Each structure stands twice: as structure tokens, then as C-alpha cells.
């Protein structure tokens, strides 16, 4: 992989950096307390000014909270959901895939059967079920998303491991006398990381959307804390009367999903040498 | 006798670097001309340029390609389509990869014939028989995976020759094959050139193959032709230090075992490392300031034998 960056990818990374920056700094840059309700000022349109409370640039929500502050603060939850749940499933999925691909035999059979099992329950059902069992908390939300999505990584890691394991340098490591953990971690993992990262970027956006879906079903981020998904699902009954409640978080969500997906496609094209020619 | 193919000053660039830099050669009908050189020197790009099928990143920045006297460098894609496979065709290094795994080989040969169904089948059958495929009636409906590498290469050759093109470009047609099969394929090419008068541009990096089949040989180094001439002359009296060293570096059955082979120190430069002068300069025993500064022109040293070296005389 050469480190050549096109202007497009620089813009994407820049935008993502801004998102992360805003999310991290949210507590210091929000104009209002994102949780503070002013019931008398509910459902106000963008650019509302109140002499007592000041400007509400993006308007207010259905209990009179500043939408801008909530969208900014919600970036944190949404990005965290994306990042953490992807990490959880990436980590567990990769470990299983590596083990199955390396040891093959019954380990692979068991792991890949479990993968089939989890994959053949629609993710949203599995998520709802698991939230119902575990109860909703941020940690459980991450766990649930991780639990339902790890098989995707396992499949990729498995296929890649099978492929890489036949390469001569793995043979050479065996010849050197390296034990399985070393081969897996030092030799195979770094070389299958690329395709896994590609999956991870696609999943990142999906996870944010997934949380929005769970919020719609009332099982996402715990109120009153905002995430883009929960803001939008609170706003879905006001699509006609208070469009701003869904449009602004929607735009943010669109931006992030777009960026990470473009990043993923870029990575994929970079990492696949064949896609470069012709 | 006019040339079947005449290439002059061909230049191909990738991202501003001339990877192929002013190549010229011609091939007469019925002649086999070999293009040899190390990996990455631009052989395949040259071959692709001859059919105007260059990869997206590669642009032709100069030169002319005359196919039976007609300049095809400026032709539109639609006209080119009528030329490719009809008047100039190509066979590839990996015969199995160059055939669509999902369609029967007969259909792929027919594709090149441009004939309608009933007549086509018979033509394909005859062509397959001509390239030495036993039992063509059965093979015609088989898929590439059911054929061995050698047979696939024959199918490729059949599909390349079914429209009786004037020129056949063969890019390392035997590298992926076993020596005994290679001998069969080379025999076949030799025969076809002789019988049909097809001009063959044979790309290879195997000096043995060149010695076996080519009447003339062009030795490429880093995107340029170092030496070109009749095969016998080039092998017996190489006029370029690269050719000379290359020939000396090959172990031969007649050599003393375990003797030290001559080596060319260093490795082929990357296109990004090309300097202003001779591209062999970093590895050449004769290199001097002039070699560094000025690219040597390709000059005739003997009858039909050209070399691009400032020090040709030192090899005599």
C-alpha cells in the first residue's frame, strides 16, 4: 500500500476529524446544557431567540431542549456506539476467525456453525432479544451490537486466514519454530488486518444506524442522553410539524456514514492490488 | 517485402514517466521476432500497445504503429475492434487465466471468428484440429478447467489465429508451461508462422526460447531496446554489454558445474529511478560520464544488427 492520498480522501479524513473533534469537545462547546428542558420553549424552529435563554440556532425539541447542543452532544454517543461496538465485534470476530482458520478441523466447524446460527437470526431481532435479557445500558448496547455483528468479521478473518496460512512466509515461521500464538499475532493478524478494516468501516456507519433503529424501538441510548438516533426517533412524530428535530441529526448521520463508507471503499481499492490495474 | 508490423518510436508513460521509451522494430510476414528482457522492462506494455489495449493508467505519448502499412495509433475504438482479433491478435502467458472459466472453449474461439453459428462451429473444429488438439469434436464443448494448460494454450492460439491475422503477439506464451509442453507449443508456433505467413512477436525472458524459435531478437532493457538483430548474430557476437552479460549469466549444459557464473551486479532500475543517460549505466562495466549524461542511440553495427551503446567497439 503506497501512502498516496488523493484530495478526496484528505477531505474525508478532515471531515471525520472534525466530527471526532466536535464529539470530544462537546461538553465545552455546546451553547446550552443539552439536557436542560424549558417546557415553555418546546418545538421552536431554528433561529429562535428567547430573551431569557438566548439563541436556539437549530431550534428546540419536544421538551424544549436546545437541538444544536443535543446534536453536538449526541455526536459523542453515536460515534462511541459506532467505535466501541465495531471494536467489540472486530475483536471477538477476528479472534474466532483466526482460530478457526488456523486450526481448521472441528474448531472451524464449531465456530463457523455458530457464525451461521447468529447470521441466520435477523440482527434486529437478536438485538431486541438480547437487550430484553440484559436490560438496556450503554455497556449492554455495545455488547448487543457486538454480539450480533461479530460473525461478519469472523467470516472475513476465517477466509483470509485460510488464504494467508498457505503462504510461504507462514510456512517459514513454522519452520523457524514459532508457536501458534506467535504465528497468529505476528504473522497472520497484521496481514489480514486490511480486509478487516474495510469491513469495520462499513459496519461503523451501520452500527450508528442500528442504534437509531433500536432507539426507534425504545431500546437505544437511555434517555435523556442524546444520540443522533434517539434525537431522530424522538422527532419522528414531528416530521411534519418540527422538521428540524430529524433533519439536523439526519444530516450529521448522513455525513458520518458517507465519510466512513468512502473511507472503506478507498481502503478496499488501495488494499486490493488487482483493483488498481486495468 | 513490406513489414506486417512496423513500430517506430513507441513511447508509453505512467504518471509522467516514460516506461517504454522510444521503441522501434518491424516484423515481416512469416517472421518470428523475439522481444526479450527482464521483468518489468516494458515487454507486456509494448504488447498491449500493439493492440491498443493499454491499462487505464498508461498513456501512449508518442510513436506510430503500422499494421500492414496502416497506422492504427489514431484509430477510433470502433475501428480498432474490427482490427483486434482479425488482423492482429494476442495470446497470453497464463492460458487458463486468459480463458473465461464459465464458457465452453469452442464458444470463445468462435467469438474471434465473427462467423455465424453453423459455419462457425465447423471452422472452430478445424482450427482446433490444426493447433493439434486431439478429438476437437469433444473438446469444443468443454470448459477450460477440463483442459490441461498446454491444451488451453492451444485453444488460445486457435482463437488468436482463426481469423488469419497478419500479426500474432504472444506474451510469454510458454512461461507457465512445462518444458516438454513448451517444446510442443513452440513447434506449433513455428509451423503456423511458416505455413500461414503470420508475423509473430514473441515476448519472453528465456534466452533458450529465443534461440529455439526466433529469427530476429530485440533485447529490451528498462523500457528501451538495447540491441536488435538476427538471433544468431546477437547470440554469437552481442554488441551491447547487457546482452553479453546476460548470456554469460545463464548456466548451460555445457558449462563446468559449480563454476562461478558471470553476474550483472545490482538490479534493474525502477521507472522512477531512470536517469538522463543510458539506463544500464548503474550496472555496466564500461560506464563513463558520457553514458551517464546522454542516452546512446541505436546504431547499426553489422548488417541488420543494431546496438544502443557508446562502447560497442569494446565488445568486438
Amino acid at each position, binding site marked *: 500500500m503506497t501512502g498516496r492520498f488523493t484530495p478526496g480522501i484528505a477531505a474525508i479524513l478532515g471531515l471525520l476529524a472534525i466530527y471526532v473533534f466536535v464529539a470530544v469537545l462537546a461538553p465545552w462547546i455546546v451553547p446550552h446544557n443539552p439536557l436542560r428542558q424549558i417546557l415553555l420553549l418546546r418545538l421552536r424552529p431554528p433561529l429562535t431567540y428567547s430573551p431569557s435563554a438566548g439563541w436556539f440556532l437549530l431550534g428546540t425539541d419536544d421538551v424544549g431542549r436546545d437541538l444544536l447542543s443535543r446534536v453536538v452532544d449526541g455526536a459523542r454517543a453515536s460515534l462511541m456506539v459506532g467505535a466501541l461496538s465495531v471494536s467489540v465485534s472486530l475483536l471477538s470476530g477476528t479472534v474466532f476467525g483466526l482460530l478457526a482458520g488456523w486450526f481448521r478441523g472441528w474448531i472451524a466447524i464449531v465456530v463457523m456453525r455458530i457464525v451461521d446460527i447468529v447470521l441466520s437470526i435477523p440482527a434486529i431481532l437478536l438485538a431486541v432479544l438480547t437487550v430484553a435479557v440484559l436490560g438496556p445500558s450503554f455497556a449492554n448496547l455495545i455488547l448487543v451490537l457486538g454480539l450480533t455483528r461479530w460473525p461478519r468479521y469472523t467470516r472475513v478473518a476465517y477466509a483470509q486466514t485460510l488464504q494467508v496460512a498457505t*503462504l*510461504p*512466509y507462514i*510456512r*517459514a*515461521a*513454522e*519452520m*523457524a*519454530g*514459532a*508457536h501458534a500464538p*506467535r504465528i497468529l499475532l*505476528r*504473522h497472520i493478524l*497484521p*496481514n489480514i488486518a486490511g480486509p478487516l478494516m474495510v469491513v469495520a468501516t462499513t459496519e461503523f456507519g451501520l452500527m450508528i444506524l442500528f442504534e437509531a433503529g433500536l432507539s426507534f424501538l425504545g431500546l437505544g441510548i437511555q434517555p435523556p442522553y442524546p444520540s443522533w438516533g434517539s434525537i431522530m426517533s424522538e422527532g419522528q412524530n414531528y416530521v411534519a410539524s418540527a422538521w428540524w428535530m430529524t433533519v439536523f441529526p439526519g444530516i450529521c448521520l448522513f455525513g458520518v456514514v458517507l465519510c466512513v463508507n468512502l473511507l472503506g471503499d478507498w481502503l478496499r481499492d488501495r488494499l486490493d492490488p488487482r483493483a488498481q490495474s486495468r | 517485402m513490406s513489414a506486417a508490423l512496423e513500430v517506430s518510436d513507441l513511447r508509453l508513460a505512467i504518471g509522467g514517466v516514460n516506461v517504454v521509451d522510444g521503441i522501434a522494430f518491424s516484423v515481416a510476414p512469416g517472421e518470428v521476432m523475439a522481444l526479450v528482457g*527482464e*521483468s518489468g522492462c516494458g515487454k507486456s506494455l509494448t504488447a498491449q500497445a500493439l493492440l491498443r489495449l493499454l491499462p487505464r493508467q498508461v498513456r501512449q505519448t508518442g510513436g506510430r504503429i503500422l499494421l500492414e502499412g496502416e497506422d492504427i495509433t489514431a484509430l477510433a475504438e470502433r475501428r480498432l475492434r474490427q482490427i483486434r482479433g482479425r488482423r492482429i491478435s494476442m495470446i497470453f502467458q497464463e492460458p487458463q487465466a486468459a480463458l473465461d472459466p464459465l464458457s465452453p472453449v469452442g464458444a470463445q474461439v468462435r467469438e474471434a471468428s465473427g462467423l455465424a453459428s453453423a459455419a462457425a462451429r465447423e471452422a472452430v473444429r478445424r482450427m482446433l484440429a490444426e493447433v493439434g488438439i486431439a478429438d476437437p469434436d469433444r473438446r469444443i464443448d468443454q470448459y477450460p478447467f477440463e483442459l*490441461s494448460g*498446454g*491444451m488451453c494454450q492451444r485453444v488460445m492460439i486457435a482463437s488468436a489465429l482463426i481469423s488469419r491475422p497478419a500479426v500474432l503477439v504472444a506474451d510469454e506464451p510458454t512461461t507457465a508451461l*512445462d*518444458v*516438454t*509442453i*513448451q*517444446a*510442443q507449443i*513452440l*513447434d506449433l508456433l513455428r509451423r503456423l508462422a511458416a505455413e500461414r505467413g503470420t508475423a509473430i512477436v514473441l515476448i519472453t*525472458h*528465456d*534466452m*533458450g*526460447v*529465443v*534461440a*529455439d524459435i526466433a529469427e530476429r531478437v530485440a533485447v529490451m532493457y528498462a523500457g528501451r531496446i538495447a540491441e536488435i538483430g538476427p*538471433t*544468431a548474430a546477437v*547470440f*554469437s557476437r552481442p554488441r551491447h554489454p547487457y546482452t553479453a552479460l*546476460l*548470456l554469460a*549469466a*545463464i*548456466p*548451460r*549444459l*555445457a558449462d563446468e*558445474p*559449480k563454476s*562461478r*557464473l558471470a*553476474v*550483472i*551486479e545490482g*538490479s*534493474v532500475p525502477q521507472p522512477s529511478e531512470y536517469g538522463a543517460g543510458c539506463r544500464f549505466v548503474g550496472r555496466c562495466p564500461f560506464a563513463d560520464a558520457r553514458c551517464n549524461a546522454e542516452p546512446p542511440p541505436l546504431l547499426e553495427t553489422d548488417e541488420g544488427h543494431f546496438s544502443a551503446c557508446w562502447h560497442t567497439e569494446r565488445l568486438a
Partner: protein
Amino acid sequence: MNPVLAVDGLVVHFPARHGPPVRAVDGVTFTVAERETLGLVGESGCGKTTVSNAIVGLVQPTGGEVRVAGMPVRGADRRTLREIRAKAQIVFQDPATSLNPRMTIGAAIGEPLLVRGLARGRELRERVAALLTEVGLRPEHASRYPHQFSGGQRQRIVIARALALRPALLLCVEPVSALDVSVRAQILNLFVELQQSHAMACLFVSHDLAVVRHVCDRVAVMYLGHLIELAPRDALYTTPRHPYTRALLAAVPEPDPALQRAKPRVPLQGEIPSPAAPPQGCVFHTRCPMAIAHCREEVPAWRHLGETIVACHRAEETPAP
């Protein structure tokens, strides 16, 4: 004197998903003595790679026995296998894929020493530096990654890694086939030098008869999983006994137009049969210009003709050179 490597009746079958198993290696016997280099030649798919993999336990033999420095490879447990691999090292064909692209070459060369606890820290660095020098590279290259080297240099690195444990046996599987002509000579020279300085036993696998002749003392010829001829170098090249060996020698194009065009041109007919369904009798009879009815029925026994061992019913009729 005990041979460093003894292969005795080695059989390796790969089970196939559909149909009969692939008989990749079907009864191969030979030995390699100390300081000796044995060449193993044959066409693609004849089982050369499988033999070498079986020797170091990278594939499990179906039958027969392999001993490296006296240790049986078949059924070896993990620890013995590790020990065997300390004695026998492999150089693979493609230097590009033989090195982990995400590991510095210093780490790659030092890995055998490190994971076996033979050296670490400074000592490891010094030994890696010495190995690099030995194969003609510079110690400061240790911190670079494989993609920063040319093919020839990479093959040197791979050889350095194989030498790290000072093996008694070096298996070279097509070590120069992926290299350019000009670089190939460098590696062959290095190989001949190492042979002399290290006094190793070598198994040199290749399909290039000229290269094998250049570096080997004895040569074994395989066809379709079977060993068909085994002879000292000069005997093989001057008086090949098996019709296949002869055909092979005839098919190698000599890089000399005068010589090459003077060669008799009688290429072998037909295709190589599938190792999943090898012919009855002599495996070569389908393509053999000398085949008679007997060849189709009976597997030829080993014959000793001078120093040559050959498996052909008509070996005695071989025309004199």
C-alpha cells in the same frame, strides 16, 4: 556414514473432495549424504514440492518413512518436529511471498533464533548482522521491510533466515525460478559458495535442468509422483537412461541458436496424466516413444546400470550417448 536425509518409500496422498485421492507422491526413495547436493527435477505437478514438504513435516506422509539426521519425521510430536526443523530448513520458490510483508527483515531472520531462545537483544542483532553479511547484504538493512528490496535481495534474505539455525540439511524448492536471469546467477553463485563454506547437505528442487546440473552432485528425476531415475550428475546428463529423462533434456532449449537448432526435434506427444488417475503399469507409458505392451501392464522395477538407478523396462536398450 549415516545419510543426513533418508527418504524411504515415501507416499503422500491428498484426499480429494470428489473422486479418488491425488497420488502426489507414490513411493519415492533416496538419500542425501553430508556435504552432498541432490537435485530433484521433474515437470510441474510431479510431486517435487510435496516431497520437500513431507521431509520437514509440513505435510503428513501417507506411507513410507523420512528420517532427518536419524530422526523419523512421520508421527513426530510437536517437540521432535521442532527439532527436525532446526536441522532441516527450507528456501521457498517465491521470495516475494516468503517474507512477511509487515515484519522487518531483521526480525524475520532473527525469528528462528528468538523463538527457540537461542539469542536475544544485542546478541541477536549481531547474529542477524553476521547472517546478512554472509549472504551479501549489509547489516543496516535489518530494519527495512521486504518491499524495499529487489527479488534477488529478498531471496538472499530468505537464505539467510534458513541458515540462521546452521541446519544440517537445506531444502531449496525452486529457489531461482522466480528470479530474473541476471539475478539468478547471483543467487546460484551464492548458493555454490554456501555449499562450500557450510558443508551442508542439500536437496535442490527445480525443473530447470541446466540449473540443477550447475549445482548438484546427484540428480533424481520424478514423473507423476514416481522417482524414475537417480544418477550422479555427469552420468545423468551424458547417458540418461530413462526415455523421460532423455525427452526432458531434449526439450530444454539451449540459449545458443547453433546448438539448439542442431538438436533432434522429437517433442513428447500428449499431456501429462492426472495424478488422481495415474496410468496402470509404468506411469510414463502414455507418452513414451518406446512404450511396449509390457509397459502398460507392469510397474518397472529398479535397475542398476552403472551408478545409475532407473525404473524402465527398456532401460538396457538405451542407445549409447
